[in-house]
């Protein structure tokens, strides 16, 4: 490949070609939409973190330090809703996914570029509605909107928040449709399914959940709003309805949504581990199909959220068994990442540190999930801090680590600049230690019986709560640092080369930042994914000329 002259890169780069606000707001370029999304979800992440900070500050004292009981309830509801729907669900798919899917496919854009832009506007409208509802009164229902609390008893603003979450669902569906159709239709010549980077398998699986689970949330929220507005009894037992039905419908979306919040992270970790070990991913097909099976089995386990809600024992046994089944593909991934690292020349740059943190924290989160999938221990642990710690190990320890891993890894490609490596490693280490200090004590708190969602607690739990709050302040530092050095790097970072990590993958064959049209000459794929031999010895591989299937 002939290197492109530097000046030409600047002129053709998607970032700088047309700098007007209008050109950004009306862009259909997937790379720019990714950045629009990145700015938006960062704002929501800051908002959600602010809620978490107040919660942890409040819980320093057994009687509650700063908030009234009602404000406390509204604060954890705000934290949950903003973090789940406005940060975690979109996070990796809409930022890194939007940026990378066409690049990894060797395509010029996603299959439906205008739909992609519409999805961002839907997301912004959704965010505005949610924020309006949360600040003009707020909600005390938690992120789960359980009825009849959300329909009959809440004093807060249910309708704008529910409408916002409803809209964000359509944004997710649009993204999911776009990714699935792009992966089917826009693969470059020679890019067979088993040559796809594992990130695309993971995003494909995520998109299936987007398309098939999100509409169930939409109809559930519609029913909820209908009941709240017209005072009819779809779920209200006083009017003949069944509140358990709401929980079934809600978790039919929200359990698969947990896999929306982890599968893309697994995709990122597969890419990062392979690159920084300079080895193909061990057992490629197993890792690929484990993404699909996690998505598929994920549709069949929602009942484990309702073991104590009055479901039948026989249903509970089946749901428990199915939940155990999810651990099989998850474990396959963990073992295969370790297998990839075994004997590799591991470079401990920031993305790899984050990815290793992901593997450890995800393993803890996954294994503690088995305690909650077991009927007997779930009765003891449900609605305690054990659950809180468990899902934060997956969502924060897992997904946020992976998001940061991906941001550091692709930052040179996205911006054309390197981030400061030393600070990156520091932030990765801080995240790991701060996270563990925040959430490990919560396992013990939950095991000892401290219930979640209460503004006060018995004095015996104070030491562990203070430890947890101290950890949260370290975690906050680990979030603020990247915000500062990424901003600095955007303008002052060292210029990135086209392939700073010696990675395989089509996105590393083009300039950093990529030109507007992605590929100046359409790429042809002649190798398997992660073929480092071909990368290291391009001349020694006559098969590059060979016809491909």
């Amino acid at each position: 490949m002939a290197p492109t002259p530097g000046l030409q890169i600047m002129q053709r780069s998607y970032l700088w070609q047309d700098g007007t606000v209008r050109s950004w707001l009306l862009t259909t370029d997937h790379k720019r939409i990714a950045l629009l999304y990145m700015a938006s979800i960062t704002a929501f992440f800051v908002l959600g973190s602010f809620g978490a900070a107040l919660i942890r500050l409040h819980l320093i004292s057994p009687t509650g330090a700063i908030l009234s009981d009602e404000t406390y309830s509204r604060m954890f509801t705000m934290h949950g809703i903003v973090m789940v729907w406005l940060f975690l669900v979109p996070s990796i798919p809409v930022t890194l996914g939007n940026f990378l899917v066409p690049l990894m496919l060797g395509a010029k854009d996603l299959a439906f570029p205008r739909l992609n832009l519409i999805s961002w506007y839907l997301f912004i409208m959704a965010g505005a509605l949610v924020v309006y509802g949360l600040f003009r009164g707020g909600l005390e229902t938690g992120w789960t909107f359980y009825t009849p609390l959300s329909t009959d008893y809440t004093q807060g603003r249910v309708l704008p928040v529910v409408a916002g979450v409803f809209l964000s669902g359509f944004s997710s569906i649009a993204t999911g449709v776009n990714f699935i159709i792009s992966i089917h239709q826009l693969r470059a010549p020679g890019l067979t399914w088993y040559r796809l980077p594992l990130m695309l398998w993971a995003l494909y699986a995520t998109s299936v959940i987007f398309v098939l689970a999100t509409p169930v949330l939409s109809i559930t929220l519609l029913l909820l709003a209908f009941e709240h507005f017209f005072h009819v009894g779809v779920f209200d037992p006083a009017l003949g309805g069944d509140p358990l039905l709401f929980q079934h419908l809600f978790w039919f979306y929200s359990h698969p949504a947990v896999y929306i919040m982890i599968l893309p992270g697994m995709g990122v970790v597969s890419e990062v581990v392979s690159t920084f070990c300079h080895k193909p991913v061990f057992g490629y097909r197993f890792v690929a199909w484990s993404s699909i099976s996690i998505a598929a089995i994920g549709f069949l386990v929602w009942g484990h959220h309702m073991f104590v809600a009055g479901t039948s024992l026989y249903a509970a046994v089946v749901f428990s068994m199915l939940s155990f089944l999810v651990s099989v593909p998850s474990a396959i991934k963990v073992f295969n990442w370790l297998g990839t690292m075994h004997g590799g020349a591991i470079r401990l740059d920031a993305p790899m540190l984050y990815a290793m943190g992901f593997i450890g924290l995800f393993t803890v989160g996954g294994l503690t999930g088995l305690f909650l999938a077991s009927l007997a221990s779930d009765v003891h642990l449900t609605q305690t801090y054990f659950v809180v710690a468990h899902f934060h190990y997956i969502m924060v320890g897992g997904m946020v680590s992976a998001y940061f891993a991906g941001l550091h890894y692709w930052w040179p490609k996205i911006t054309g600049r390197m981030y400061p490596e030393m600070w990156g490693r520091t932030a990765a280490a801080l995240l790991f230690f701060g996270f563990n200090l925040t959430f490990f004590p919560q396992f013990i708190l939950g095991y000892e019986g401290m219930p979640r969602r209460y503004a006060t607690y018995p004095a015996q739990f104070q030491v562990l709560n203070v430890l947890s709050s101290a950890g949260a302040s370290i975690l906050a530092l680990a979030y603020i640092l990247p915000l500062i050095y990424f901003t600095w790097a955007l303008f002052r970072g060292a210029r990135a080369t086209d392939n700073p990590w010696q990675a395989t993958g089509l996105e590393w064959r083009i300039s950093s930042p990529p030109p507007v049209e992605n590929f100046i000459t359409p790429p042809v794929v002649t190798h398997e994914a992660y073929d480092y031999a071909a990368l290291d010895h391009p001349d020694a591989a006559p098969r590059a000329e060979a016809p491909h299937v």
Partner: protein
Amino acid sequence: MSEHLAPYDSPQHRDETAIAGMWLFLASEILLFGGLFLIFVVYSHTRAAGWALGVRHTSLTIGGINTALLLTSSMVYTLGVEAARNENARGTILAGLGAAGLGVTFLCLKGWEWHTELDEHLFPGPGFALGGLQAGGAQLFYSFYFLSTALHGLHMLVGIGLIAWVCLRVYRGRGASLRVLPVEVVGLYWSFVDLVWVLLFPVLYLIGRV
């Protein structure tokens, strides 16, 4: 609309992609209505007597006429797709207008049906008309009835709007070669709206009537 092919290789590739996108969107729609039908599945069993009482109060005549109208509308539209494939702009527009007209008639009848039901106090709430032991189940039925017909009606409005857009497109593009794709994609959507009704009709008017 600019005709540059951006991410696609050829016009045929672009059209295939659009059709695939519509099918996937319809899969999503099936799950949307699927969640709604769960209400029927559960309550028509747990509150069978009250649910059946509600079913007996629906107007089978209007429901039946509407089913016939909508099935005919889908058939007429399909003829329009065939006309588009044969480059017959006039035929496409006529079929589109016919299909949309039948759809509007459906909505008018539905509106009239709603009107009489609201007059008879069949909307769930304190003044609900059907008393007695089974009032709870009947109220659940009418909650489902109003929500499902409203959601279906909304889909019909969108569909009628899309058909009008297709007709306008074909009308404006007279003389040039006719693009079949938008006609086809809207046809998929219209048939889906029809299919939802094919399931709603027995659920709302037939099951439990006798």
